[in-house]
Every structure is written in structure tokens, then in C-alpha cells.
């Protein structure tokens, strides 16, 4: 599903150049649930940005579902993001003046799905994250966990190939974190490919594979026994 070969990325900070990614090689198959771990500055966010086509690599290859991702125009990148990827952010990033339902329907709007169908689909995904009764509520009327669940529904609404979650539990207490992870696990059980960036060990162990990043290189890549979040909920 995802294939990365010898990926390099450096940032210019004044006269200094900061080499963040120093040759990453990495492959993700369909249906995997991968945790990308690392301390701050390890390059995990940069990697996620590149995977999310929000940033481009200096060199190296990136193939997503057989499509080479290279030299994309802004428009093309937007279309690919819309088609291939679903984003889940640490700070939820819901649009604050839109209801939960409208937030979920947004990726479908950019896919030019007709309004009625869009509403139905969005409602279906809201139901799946258990928030159907909150469909008409604004984000400000929802709890953190509920917001993240709306964000997950939004990420899934466009039926992307891969879900990218950047510290999805970073802003939540542990109980809510486990609820969210439980949801992510269930979505993965249905066959969705999910990448989770986290620095929390317990969250990482709820995935099926952990990739450890340190100083811009992968230092460890191992499959693990998944801890089900259900038992903590």
C-alpha cells in the first residue's frame, strides 16, 4: 500500500541546514495498523507530513497504492489527499461553525458527491463512531473524545486508502484515549490501513507493528502482539 525508498528531507534554518530524515526505507501492506514512535525531533511528524502529501521529500521514492507521489502541483496534491488519505489530528481540527454532520461531509463535498448522498454517507459514518444523536451539534458542544470521533468519521467518510493519525490521543485523558484507540482498532479490523504517530508506549502497543524513529532513521521495526483497547474501556 505504502512504499518508501531512501527518503531524505532537510529544513533550512537560516544558514544551517537541519537534516531531519536521513534515508527512510519502509513498507506498509494493506490492512496494517502501524505505530510510528519516536521522541520529539526524531522526524516522525515530518515523515507523516510527507506521507500525507502536506510536505514533499528532497529525494527518495514514495509510492501510494501503486501511484508514484512526486512533484505534485498543489491542485494534484489536494486531489490525491482527498482520494487516498484520511487525516486525524491531535487537535481534532474540526471547523468550528459547522455541525458534526457537516464536518464529516466535508471531504465528500470536495469529492463532488451530491448533497443528499453526502448527508447520508456522513450520517452512516457518524453512526459508526456512535455519534448519530450529536449530528447537529457544533464542535464546541462536544467533548474531546467526541470531537476526535467526529474527526475519525470525517477521515473515513472519503473512503481513503490509508488513515493517517497524528498523535490522535495527544489531547485526551487516558480513558478517552483508550476509547478512541478501541475505535481505531475496530476500523482496522474491517481491513483499513492505519498509521498512528505517537510517543505513548501503551498507545503504540495497541497497534500491530511499531516503527521506531531516532534522529531521522528507523532504528527498530517490529511486529507486536496487539493489546486490545476494549478491556480498558
Amino acid at each position: 500500500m505504502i512504499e518508501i525508498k531512501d527518503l531524505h528531507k532537510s529544513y533550512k534554518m537560516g544558514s544551517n541546514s537541519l537534516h531531519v530524515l536521513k534515508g527512510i526505507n519502509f513498507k506498509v501492506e494493506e490492512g496494517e495498523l502501524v505505530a510510528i514512535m519516536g521522541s520529539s525531533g526524531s522526524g516522525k511528524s515530518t515523515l507523516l507530513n510527507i506521507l500525507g502529501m502536506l510536505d514533499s521529500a528532497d529525494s527518495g521514492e514514495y509510492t501510494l497504492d501503486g501511484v508514484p507521489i512526486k512533484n505534485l502541483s498543489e491542485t494534484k496534491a489536494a486531489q490525491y489527499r482527498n482520494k487516498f488519505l484520511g487525516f486525524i489530528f491531535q487537535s481534532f481540527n474540526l471547523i468550528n461553525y459547522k455541525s458534526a454532520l457537516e464536518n464529516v461531509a466535508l471531504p465528500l463535498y470536495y469529492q463532488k458527491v451530491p448533497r443528499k448522498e453526502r448527508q447520508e454517507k456522513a450520517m452512516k459514518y457518524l453512526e459508526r463512531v456512535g455519534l448519530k444523536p450529536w449530528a447537529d451539534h457544533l464542535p464546541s458542544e462536544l467533548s474531546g473524545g467526541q470531537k476526535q470521533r467526529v474527526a475519525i468519521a470525517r477521515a473515513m467518510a472519503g473512503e481513503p486508502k490509508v488513515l493517517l493519525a497524528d498523535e490522535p490521543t495527544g489531547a485526551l485523558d487516558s480513558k478517552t484515549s483508550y476509547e478512541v484507540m478501541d475505535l481505531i482498532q475496530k476500523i482496522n479490523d474491517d481491513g483499513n490501513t492505519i498509521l498512528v504517530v505517537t510517543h505513548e508506549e501503551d498507545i503504540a502497543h495497541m497497534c500491530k507493528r511499531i516503527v521506531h524513529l531516532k534522529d531521522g532513521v528507523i532504528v527498530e521495526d517490529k511486529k507486536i502482539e496487539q493489546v486490545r483497547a476494549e478491556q480498558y474501556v
Partner: protein
Amino acid sequence: MWLFDRDLWIEIFHTLGKNMFRTFLTMLGVIFAMVILVLLLGSANGMSNGFNKIFAGTASNSLFVWGQSTSEPYKGFERGRRIRYKLEDADILKKQIPEIEVLAPRIELGNHRGVVTVYRNGQTSGSAVYGDFPEIDNITKKKLVEGRFLNQTDIDNSKKVCVIGEETYKLLFDKGEKAIGQDIRINGIYFSVVGIYKPNNNINIDGENAVFIPFTTFQKAFNSGDRIGWMAIAVEEGTPVPFVEKQIKDILKAKYDIHPDDERAIGSFDMSEIFNNITAFTTVLKGFSFFVGIFTLLAGVIAISNILLITVKERTQEIGVRRALGATPVIVKRQIVVEAIVLTAFAGLVGFAIAVGILSILDAMFGSGDDFPFVKPMISVPQFIISFILMVGLSVLIGLLPANRAVRIKPIDALREE
């Protein structure tokens, strides 16, 4: 067509409605600008209409020619010779100058602008007395309050009838007294009144204290022969009056042995000159109003652009999220530009409505044009359409500024800002 995309409009009204107060403040500039533009243009139009009303009834493309005294000796004649035209001159001029549409010769009693005593039942008035052809009515229209103007039958039968001015009526008759059918006496001859005219707030060359009698009647009654005093001439539309004026003078100078360089022998008055001056004045006034209005509008639209720039900055995160979710730069740009257009167009319409209201009030108060030239102050449909198109065009151009700013927001930068 994306313009009819319901979702686009829902998005736009959502964002604008979310912050009503700011939206309203943003629009204020354009509302004022539109009010100023429409008021200025409307007033200029009102003034133009006012002048037109003054000129109503006077053929603007006309001139008047009369005889004066020569100022140069010529062909054995001394200077200071009085020039008197004859009735045949009218036919000669009409025949030789095809551009002349109407030519009405006139004879007057006494000297030029002379006053004659008119009697009736012991009352008297000092009035001008003119012998006229009915055609004069095509050049200086009389507004009749009662009866009729002179007609061809009066001429053919040399009827002893007359049309009098309202001023003359007041001098000769008691208030409310019926004048039609009554006789008045001029130089011992009785004329029956068939019409009374009143001033119609326009240029009144003949004055209001005057008596008009048929030309042929005048000839017989006062033994004037084929003399004429002056000629009122209407020139066909599109021909400049000075062009015809020169031909007339050349013909008359040749006929009456006037020195070709003698400027004083033939008196003339070009009506179109005044008319053109006033038209030029109102045109400049309108142009100036438009100019001022459009620049005020520009300032208003720039204010909208400014606020949108701030809005874009505030919405950085939102725009970033939209981009991450698949909004292409074109979609983002379009939304901001359409917001600018909607704001401007709505504000413009509000301003237009306010200004039209004010103009209607002004119209009701002063629009009759009695006191000063100000009639029906309102802007025309083409003026409105042009202003509106200009305004929307400006808003598109100016909306591109914040739109480009919005597009420059990189999703990662936006999402990093927390």
C-alpha cells in the same frame, strides 16, 4: 456550473453570517459609496432634466435673425443704413437653404421690442404686438391656458383675432373674467381674443405681455406691406446652427448690399449655443459625479478586501484543514472571491435602495423644478447597470488579493498553528 452550486452558497452565507457585525461593518464602506454615487448621479440627472424643462417648448436647434444698422459703407451706401427685410426673403432663404426646417417671419408694431398701448373697456396695457405665422409655434411653443393659438385659417382669411399673454390678460381683464371672444383694441382696430398663453418656466423670447395676431391681418390693419421684422428659423436636426447662420447672412448681405465684413448689420441669436453650453455643463457634471462616485466605490471595495484579508488570517487553520481534506487552490480562491462579490453586491444594492429613497424624497420636495432647475432626480437604468458591473468587477479584482493570500497558506503551517 459552479455558480449555481448550492453548497458554495451555503458555505458563503455560513461564513458571512457567522460574524454578522463584522460583515455589516465591512459593507458600510460600499453602502456609503453607492449612496454617494447614486445621489451625485441622480442630482446631476435632476439638474439636467431641470434645464431640459426650461428649454421645453423652444426648439434648441434654432436661431433668430433681425435687421440692424450697417456699420460699413458699401456700394455707395453710407454707414448707419437701417436694414429692413421683406416677406420674399423668407421664401428665398427657404428655397436656397434646404437645412432650414421651419422659417417663421414676424412683424412687430413699433420698433424692435417696442410697446404699444392696447385698450379694452377703459383698461390699458403696454404690450408688444406681433404679426405671426402659426409656424412660430414650432419654434417657441406657447403653453395655452385657454383657447387656441393662431392657425392657417386665420392667415388665409386675415381674421381679426389675437392670442394674448397672461400678463396682458391681467392688465386688461378683471380677475376670473372670461377673455375668449372679447375684443381688445390696438391702434383703433378691434381684435377678438382666441387664446391666452402662460409662461411655462422656460426661456420666453416673446415675453408674457404680448399680443399675437395673424401676419396677414397685421399687414392689412397696420399697412405694413411686405415688411418683416425678424425671422425665427428652426434648423434640421444634426445640422450645426452656425453653418446655416452663415449662409443666411451671406444671402441677406448680397441681397441688401451689405459689406461682407459688416458684422453689425444683421442681428442674430443662436439658440443652440446656450443649449450646447448647458448640455456641456450637465454632461461634465454627470461625468464628474461618476468619477467621484467610482473612486469612493473603489475605496469601499478596498475596505472589503482589507477585512477579507484579516478574515483569511483568522481562518488560517480552517483553510488549512480544508486544504488537507482536498480543497484545491481554485476552490479556496473561488470561495474568497465570491465572498467579496456577494458582500459588495449586497452592500451595493442596500446603498442603491437607500439612495433611491433619498432621491425620491428630494423629488417629492423639490422635483417640480419651479424654484431651480431640479426635476426628477433619479439615475437611469444604464447608469445603474454600468455602476453595478464596475462595482462587481472591482470586487473580483480586489477579492483576488485575499484569495491569493488564502492560497499561499500551506496546510502544514496552518495545522501547526494551535
